[in-house]
């Protein structure tokens, strides 16, 4: 997984937690060029696949399914909500949709 050095500096704690929890190696990039790797210090990462398999089994036990795809690392998405086209920040869109009679 690639991470820009600026993002790494800003969210260092989160990325460290991610490496520790998932066992993934981070590629640290400066201007799209990989300059360093951040690797997990322990063997926790080796059991990630095993943990995923257990999670899928637990979900299956309650009639749910999850298909692991990609890294799915929350830290990689940095939300910046923008103004909607109608220019109204004073609404709760989902609540309005669910309450609408024609939803």
């Amino acid at each position, binding site marked *: 997984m690639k991470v820009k050095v600026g993002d790494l500096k800003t969210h260092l704690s*989160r990325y460290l*937690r*991610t490496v520790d*929890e998932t066992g993934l190696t981070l590629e640290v990039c400066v201007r799209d060029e990989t300059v360093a790797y951040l690797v997990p210090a322990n063997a926790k990462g080796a059991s990630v696949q095993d943990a995923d398999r257990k*999670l899928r089994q*637990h*979900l299956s*036990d*309650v*009639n*749910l*399914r*999850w*298909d*692991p795809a*990609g890294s*799915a*690392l*929350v*830290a*990689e*998405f940095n*939300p*910046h*909500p*923008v*103004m*909607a*086209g*109608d220019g*109204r*920040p*004073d*609404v*709760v*869109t*989902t*609540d309005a*949709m*669910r*309450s609408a009679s024609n939803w």
Partner: protein
Amino acid sequence: MKSFFDASALVPLLILELHSKGAVEAWRETEVGYAWTWARVEVEAALIRRKVAPQCWSEWRGLDSKVRWLHAPTDFIDQICQFNRALGLRAADAGQLLVFERSTRAIEELKLVTFAREMHAAASRLQLSVQ
């Protein structure tokens, strides 16, 4: 933190609205994010209704790829009906809450992130963990 995001907590990550600040804070505290696949339909409906710019759709693709999407079986409607008989929630609220309730049995320390008032109240009544 492991979080289950209702559509009401995903939309304000993309569109500036009343609960955007709370949603962003919840996202930033989250290490692993789960959601029910139905939320995809609701998020895209919200983006269409709110007439967002193409950049927002691009952001949605980025967010979509970072969520662990949980799939429910085809006979899920019957189970939602049964679950909702004691709650009387709106359909989407009931479906989301049932998937979350099931997920808590499989995923330890999972918390619900929602800004739908009825769902929040029902989750509290069921003594489920809500952010």
